[in-house]
């Protein structure tokens, strides 16, 4: 086959994959702007009424706000824990750091349902269920690995001699970290923070097991689907999709900006 044919075939294949991935959204987006009370496709008339419900109805807007709040708390915790862990694993070469790294990112690989079940049993015994703190902690467990993966990759690429330069030129370890290491890691930390936020914001399984009566947005959608089905679900889903795309977009821009800077550093280095 000529290279041209291969290229066209690959392009078509790529389009098919993207279509397959985004297919659910093709239904969801029009549904959320539907005038009708029932989820019917295609919509007969257009309206923003379900978005109005989403942002004004206390149970919906409360769930959205709660999800954002939990997400922010989880992000702050994950960035602090994840960045510190990455530093410990990459820079300080602890004995068995490979094993530590594997354990730290295990929640990425272990099935969510297993983690959720484990947490349910643990928190039930501790009588910690139905608490906001517990939910934040539970989400943090699955969010931290994202920060560790992204930040430790950036840290491995970061030339250690710039930290040495800072030290020998008069910075104590703390100032060297704040003024040199941290700014260099900023794009990676931002990207990790985005992943961490959405690990929490999107989570349903763990929330189902440990949240009790606390209703986050995914849980609200889930509960709504069990009771009745109105297009507010679609509107909520669209808001989540929009937020995810914006967040991952920011993360990707930050990540590639960081990579680009690193590359120009090394290209002439």
């Amino acid at each position, binding site marked *: 086959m000529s290279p041209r044919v291969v290229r066209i075939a690959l392009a078509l294949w790529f389009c098919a994959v993207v279509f397959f991935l985004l297919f659910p959204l093709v239904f969801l987006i029009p549904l959320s702007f539907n005038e009708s009370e029932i989820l019917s496709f295609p919509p007969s008339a257009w309206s923003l009424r379900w978005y109005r419900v989403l942002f004004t109805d206390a149970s919906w807007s409360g769930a959205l706000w709660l999800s954002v709040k939990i997400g922010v708390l989880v992000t702050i915790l994950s960035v602090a824990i994840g960045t510190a862990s990455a530093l410990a694993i990459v820079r300080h070469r602890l004995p068995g750091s490979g094993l530590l790294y594997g354990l730290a990112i295990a929640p990425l690989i272990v099935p969510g349902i297993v983690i959720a079940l484990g947490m349910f049993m643990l928190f039930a015994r501790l009588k910690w269920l139905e608490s906001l703190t517990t939910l934040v902690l539970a989400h943090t467990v699955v969010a931290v690995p994202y920060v560790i993966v992204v930040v430790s990759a950036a840290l491995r690429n970061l030339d250690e001699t710039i930290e040495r*330069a*800072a030290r*020998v030129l008069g910075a104590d370890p703390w100032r*060297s970290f704040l003024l040199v290491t941290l700014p260099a890691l900023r794009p990676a930390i931002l990207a990790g923070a985005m992943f961490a936020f959405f690990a929490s914001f999107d989570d349903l399984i763990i929330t189902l097991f440990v949240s009790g009566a606390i209703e986050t947005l995914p849980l609200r959608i889930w509960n709504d689907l069990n009771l009745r089905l109105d297009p507010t679900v679609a509107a909520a889903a669209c808001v989540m999709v929009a937020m995810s795309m914006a967040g991952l977009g920011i993360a990707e821009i930050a990540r590639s900006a960081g990579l680009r800077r690193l590359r120009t550093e090394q290209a002439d280095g």
Partner: protein
Amino acid sequence: MHPSLAHRGAKGLQASAGGAPISFAGITKRYGPVEALREFSLDIAGGEFVTFLGPSGSGKTTALNILAGFIEPSAGDVLIGGVSITRLPTEKRNVGMVFQSYSLFPHMDVRDNVAFPLRMRGVPKAERHARAEQALAMVRLAGFGGRKPHELSGGQRQRVACARAIVFEPRVLLMDEPLGALDLKLREAMQDEIKEVQRRIGCTVIYVTHDQGEALAMSDRIVVMSEGRIEQIGSPAAVYDSPSNAFVAQFVGETNFLPAKLAGGRLTFAGGDGPAPARLPEGWRGRVALRPEHFTRVAEAGAMPVLAGRIGDVAFHGGSYRYVVETEKAGRVIVQEQRRHGADGPVVGAPVTLRFSLERAAFLDG
């Protein structure tokens, strides 16, 4: 460069206290069973330019990193200005340092990079920016303060790194293969610039390199190292003319070795014999070390020792020729010959007679 800025830069930095003497006293560094540095002792005078020269793994960088405080020695003591700094954290040692990889802070502009050591020392912003500008002028980068490191060429980056290392007028400047990442022409120009800067501020410089040409061109003294030990310490001329052993002879410059022995008051070696040098004992066995420029191509043998052979590859070097002679009795010999006006150059395949003087040779035991 703006001339008045350069002038001010020079004056501003001349006020420094000059170079501090440095002593390494019996430094050993072990990594498990491996000794990266063995009983390393060396006294360096204030204002001296000393080069640690050796192949990778020779311990030269280990010695420098111990002085900088990046590595703790297993035994021994390091003194700057007569005061032990072995237990002092890196940031308190007050030394300037330039790295092979430039190691500029990528998120800071050039001015903030250069001003960084002053910021760490609590110098107010206006003053540190003025002093950064002076230091930049000194490395011929006046007006580059607003650029980001990634907007500069490799040579410019290394000059910024130099400015950053000297801006706080340290009495000791450490340079870890600073020109290793630059191309040849730029390296030579930067050698002159580094020497110029050192002359102006008078600091003690320890310069680490594996490039013997750089070491010979820049140093007051060279410390030749291999496998964690000092092989020889001396001025560039002393190290070049009188290498203390075969390693130094081979690592610094090029050397031809002729196995030889002294018997009956005559030195005999492959291809001939000559009068015995006074400093060698009767019965000595070893090698005569001859530099490529010690040979002269002659029409016929005279009183001096000669080697006969055939010319192999010839390389034209502008002012000189460098060629290989396959000798009948002493194997391959490398010869460097100045071009003389009107004289014929060496011809590949031609028979040749090489004359040399034992007075300029070095004699290596064993």
